[in-house]
């Protein structure tokens, strides 16, 4: 019997101000796209949320033309004026934070606690951060007068729809580029609402264009000759396709792709905090996180103790209605993703790993997967090698720091890694040897606009965030004056 039963505490869905119909945003105007009109659904209930008129290839053409025309005047504005627009967008996002959070949770299935406390504030922080750079680009280390690249085509994933839009748009605008952005097919609503905010902030028409749509729209953006740079966040397979498409086209590319991060726990780790870090590493956003700590590498001597502590902790996770403020684990974003998670989890069982989940009732409708632990996993198992992109943790063991490094690096990916130890010198020793773009020490999945993020190997290239994030949108310019 539960002694302390938390009463439902749902955020009202009215706050999302859901409209019956959404379209595209091109050249400062909202209109229906000429592509297919699709129904978007709430992954927690499978009920239709609203209708979106998607973009067509012609719409891509119009958007690129608008962005081209807007480019030179936008780039010619003093940095301080571009900063003013970005600050304005950041403040407007804060003002509409609740609306954006509820909308994100409805469309994506993530818990309101995450969209409210992480996605929306971090997205606004990104605009604030890059607004600050806009008038200081000459001091950023790219020469005295670095120039923007031109029109950026940006394609973003469904796991952090608004946050990824912010990661893409803010640095591009700060550096004087214009953008054509395609949100993911299953989660277009917050990006379109961000377009509304941008329109309300009086940005010159064409500087930002938002084109909801599927893979065909993405391909049309990638292939469009009027685009100078492609920025993509998504799967490694699509990333490879993009690279093939733009080969020899002269387009610049930055890719932020998949991951299979090792979260490495030594026997001298702060154990309770490590448990939190492991939970946050893999169950944050249902594991729909490219940098998720999906491989737990635990020193063999503390394996049983740590697994016991994880069982204890996982039993307290609350799975259910994403809009309930006490929900820890929300819905899987789509039927397709749920099928992929199930397939990989089944392969784990078939390959001999031991599967465990806490007792937790899954709702009857919608897409759900319980938090799942696999122990007895070996490096050769698919669940240790392939990105699952779901709430599934594979536990492996190691004996020495060198073995931990070797196993952590033994993956085609290299986006992130975590180290848990109270020994500072070991953190530095490990961090120098891990081939991952982000290494967290005694924490995991912490994001800050000032910190560069990006991958090694098949996790992609280019960095987003921080001063480094400017490089993806600038031509370095050096000259010698006599």
């Amino acid at each position: 019997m539960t002694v302390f039963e938390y009463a439902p505490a749902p955020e009202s869905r009215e706050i999302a101000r859901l409209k019956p119909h959404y379209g595209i945003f091109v050249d400062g105007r909202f209109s229906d796209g000429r592509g297919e009109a699709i129904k978007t659904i709430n992954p927690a209930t499978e009920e239709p949320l609203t209708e979106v008129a998607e973009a067509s290839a012609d719409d891509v053409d119009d958007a690129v033309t608008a962005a081209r025309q807007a480019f030179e005047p936008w780039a010619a504005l003093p940095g301080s004026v571009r900063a003013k627009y970005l600050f304005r967008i950041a403040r407007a996002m804060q003002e509409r934070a609740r609306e954006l959070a509820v909308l994100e949770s409805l469309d994506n299935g993530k818990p309101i606690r995450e969209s409210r406390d992480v996605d929306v504030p971090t997205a606004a922080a990104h605009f604030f951060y890059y607004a600050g750079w806009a008038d200081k680009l000459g001091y950023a280390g790219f020469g005295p007068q670095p120039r923007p690249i031109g029109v950026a085509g940006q394609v973003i994933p469904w796991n952090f729809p608004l946050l990824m839009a912010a990661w893409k748009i803010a640095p591009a605008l700060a550096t004087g580029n214009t953008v054509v952005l395609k949100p993911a097919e299953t989660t277009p609503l917050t990006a379109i609402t961000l377009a509304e905010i941008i329109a309300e902030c009086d940005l010159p028409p064409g500087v930002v264009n938002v084109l909801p749509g599927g893979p065909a729209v993405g391909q049309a953006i990638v292939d469009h000759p009027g685009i100078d740079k492609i920025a993509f966040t998504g799967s490694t397979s699509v990333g490879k396709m993009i690279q093939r498409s733009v080969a020899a086209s002269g387009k610049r590319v930055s890719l932020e792709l998949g991951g299979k991060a090792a979260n490495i726990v030594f026997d001298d780790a702060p154990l309770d905090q490590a448990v939190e870090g492991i939970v946050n590493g893999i169950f944050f956003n249902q594991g729909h996180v490219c940098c998720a700590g999906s491989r737990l590498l635990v020193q063999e001597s503390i394996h049983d103790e740590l697994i016991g502590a994880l069982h204890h902790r996982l039993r307290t996770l609350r799975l259910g209605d994403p809009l309930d403020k006490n929900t820890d684990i929300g819905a899987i974003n789509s039927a397709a993703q749920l099928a992929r998670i199930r397939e990989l989890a089944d392969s784990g069982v078939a390959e001999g790993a031991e599967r465990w989940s806490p007792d937790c009732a899954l709702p009857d409708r919608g897409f759900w997967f319980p938090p799942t632990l696999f122990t007895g996993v070996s490096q050769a198992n698919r669940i240790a090698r392939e990105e699952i992109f779901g709430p599934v943790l594979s536990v492996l063991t190691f004996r020495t720091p060198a073995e931990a490094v070797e196993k952590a690096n033994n993956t085609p990916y290299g986006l992130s890694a975590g180290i848990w130890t109270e020994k500072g010198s070991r953190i530095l020793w490990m961090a120098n040897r891990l081939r991952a773009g982000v290494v967290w020490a005694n924490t995991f999945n912490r994001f800050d606009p000032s910190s560069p993020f990006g991958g090694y190997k098949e996790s992609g290239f280019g960095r987003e965030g921080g001063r480094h994030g400017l490089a993806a949108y600038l031509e370095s310019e050096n000259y010698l004056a006599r």
Partner: protein
Amino acid sequence: MTATLRPGPLAELARDDSSLRRFLHGLSGVDQVGAEGRAAMLATRSIKTTAKAWAIDAAIGMVDLTTLEGSDTPGKVRSLCAKAMRPDPSDAGVPAVAAVCVYPDLVETAVRALAGSRVQVASVATAFPSGRAALATKLVDVAEAVAAGASEIDMVIDRGAFLAGRYGQVFDEIAAVKQACGSAHLKVILETGELVTLDNVRRASWLALLAGGDFIKTSTGKVSPAATPPVALVMLQAVRDFADRTGELRGVKLAGGIRSAKEAVRYLVMVNEVAGQAWLRPEAFRFGASSLLNDLLQQRHKLATGAYDGPDYVTVD
């Protein structure tokens, strides 16, 4: 040494200073940033309607209603006891608090005033709040409180000895006080505001549990900071881990600085999710407080009627 633990590896630890040190320093460290983050996350739980009503009544039943002032008088203590038995004169449905907590010389007054009720009498002892006295003096302090009828003793540890690394001395004092308590329950005040680091809080918690404390308690209320969410988190983890290893359920008391019902409800969430629901009862969890009770009563009334009433609708004692 008087180890109250059942014979076994844990009881062996108290053999000498160095084996205690090895054990306490071998406990997993506490990462301050992570502990603060976890406490902050738990504070975002939204406790409404029926859950809030349950939590407020549970919290009232866990209060050690406290007065520890130089100016305490028998009259003041009697008035507090009346409030403890029936916190809201207008509503008999409000549960009584867990205990009244006073200085040793006022125990007798409290025992008489509370006769026939289930409210316990707790007494601070051992040269409270500083603990700076000879062990013999501390034991006399305890013995007198127990003789006067206290069923719970709130002792302070020797923070100086703890910080100097004389763990054996701290252990022995707690064990001696436990013996002097007889059947009275012993709460061991760590004074976490003077221990400062969370590593120290964890070590002191284990030291007090190993030495036989029935409860570990944050603070005297005379030092700031007193109870804080990260400190409560670490102490709740300690009793949870202790129960996992020994099967013995020991309690936690948070004291000092908890004034609002909102904070109390947040702490109950923490108890629930960190230690577990076995701790959600007055035998295993307490709030040491004076003004908290009135805020709990006001919130209870607000929940029942939908309107706040002013401070004059709860009693001032």
